[in-house]
């Protein structure tokens, strides 16, 4: 049975986030490798935590995605979700005079 993780968009930032559940404590991380994965028949606690985060206005529209286990950790199974996890598949235009928002802004909620 495929392993799955919960993902959503952070309400405030709009950025992609993945649900981590450690010792029953939920948090949202930008790094899919830090997400908590489980099989579809054992997702109850993850589902409850995701729905709770949506009700608490931390995330928008949580859903499950299939992930693959690699030597570097979880990797999304579909191209769409891989791009969503990793960002656009090319270098973004660079503005020399701007201190861009870094990936650090994708902080956990």
């Amino acid at each position: 049975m495929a392993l799955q993780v919960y993902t959503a968009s952070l309400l405030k930032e709009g950025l992609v986030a993945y649900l981590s559940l450690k010792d029953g404590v939920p948090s949202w991380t930008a790094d899919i490798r830090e997400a908590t994965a489980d099989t579809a028949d054992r997702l109850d606690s993850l589902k409850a935590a995701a729905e709770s985060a949506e009700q608490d206005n931390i995330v928008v529209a949580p859903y499950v995605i299939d992930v693959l286990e690699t030597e570097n950790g979880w990797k999304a199974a579909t191209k769409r979700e891989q791009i969503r996890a990793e960002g656009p598949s090319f270098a973004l235009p660079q503005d020399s005079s701007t201190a861009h928002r870094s990936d650090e802004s994708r902080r956990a909620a």
Partner: protein
Amino acid sequence: MYQYSEQDHQLLLERVEQFRGQVQRRLSGQLSEDEFKQQRLRNGLYLQLHAYMLRVAIPYGLLSAEQMRTLAHIARKYDKGYGHFSTRQNIQYNWPQLEDVPDILDDLAAVEMHAIQTSGNCIRNTTSDPLAGVARDEIEDPRPYCELIRQWSTFHPEFNFLPRKFKIAVSGAIGDRAAVAVHDIGLRLVEGPEGENGFEIYVGGGLGRTPMIGKLIRPFLPKEDMLTYLEAILRVYNQLGRRDNLYKARIKILVHETGEEKFRELVEEEWQKIKATGLYLREQDVERIKGFFKDPDYETLPDTDAEFENQLLSNPEFARWADKNIELHKQSGYRVVYLSLKSANQPPGDVTADQMDAVADLADKYSLGQIRTTHRQNLVLSDVKLQDLPALWQELKALDLATPNYNHVTDIISCPGLDYCALATARSIPISKAITDRFDDYDFVNDLGDVSINISGCINACGHHHVANIGILGVNKKGEEVYQLTLGGSAREDASIGKIIGPAFDADQIVDAIGDVLNVYLENREEPEETFLATYRRLGQDPFKERLYG
């Protein structure tokens, strides 16, 4: 350009404050996402694949230098230092945070800009010819009529919840640079039987999963009747357009299913009821709006310049750029300059904040302080003196905005595709880059001449692939991105929908396939002046199909 009235300013500020309250209520949990979604969409705010996306309206593609600087400021302060010019002449920011959006709208309002009606089932930003007011083939400047449509359609209470989104384009020239045939309504200014100007009215054009060329439902409409006639069309659509099926809700489907003749009768019947109402355009009202678009005080200049001619003869690089990216101007001694947003170094239509600021400075320095955006995702400086072209070229080159490719093979229209868009099924930007990298040789580009390549990352066709000479549609087939080719499309006055040539190609095959198509053209054209489209229309699909699939 149009200047806001006190009432316009007030309306905009009230709207920003209203949205600020909605955002605060959403963040505090007083509004659910379902409740908030309709509010944010009405203010151009989408939630895309990676982040929020804000679409800002650029009315009929016209920007002042000050507005461009504000767009740069927004990109720098609230986003990742760049913006993306879209095929509907708007700009999109890909990374704003929700709590910042009211402040962004505030900054926009300060320069008479907004994001109202850039999303949702309402009348969207009216688009037009980027050469409006300066084109040599112009019958009449379309911008005053675009502005009248903007004022009529903004917050129009009756048309705020249409069956589906609604797009209008207006052209005032013989050549169509606004793709009027693929809009819900397309208006073309034409000369009437008595020598007076009026409109040809096309209805039911569009792309997406059911591409259609607009039907000419009125060959001549007096200009004073423009708004009453548009109102009649919208009323028929609003009453009869389908609301039960998202994919059959556009007016093109209504026109198709009703039949062109019957639809025309319905519009004319409705029009008779309302043509003498307050929307009838009085001469003084039109003249007042025309006053905002008067010709600037052009200098009296000869249509030659010694230094320009010298540069053409002595500087091949300049000559290439001048050949491709400069257009004649109605005023002697002036030229229109296309700023290519299609270099090999950035995605099509993307511009950094630095580039935006620099373009604003160049507009002030060389082009009367105005910039236009084009539906092919480029920029235009519309009023450049011939004598200033060499200096302008040097500055554009330093900014990577002088790629000599306007309307040529590497001037690719591309939607954001799967790299940004929540609806996309395949990537388009990497394919456009691969094509550019393969064919980015001036001699080859020049030899190919006038040819268009457009790419869409899904069937919604935001990359206008249906109306490209060579169209590419990315789709997902069993988890893999594959690319379907269409040939023979055109978005110009000879508009046509391209036809699918055969089975789709894998991502690593599509650039070779494009190369094959271009080679068939080069081998079969009757003379160098015969364009790709003319050759295709003469030969049909067979030689292309034979080369691609053997």
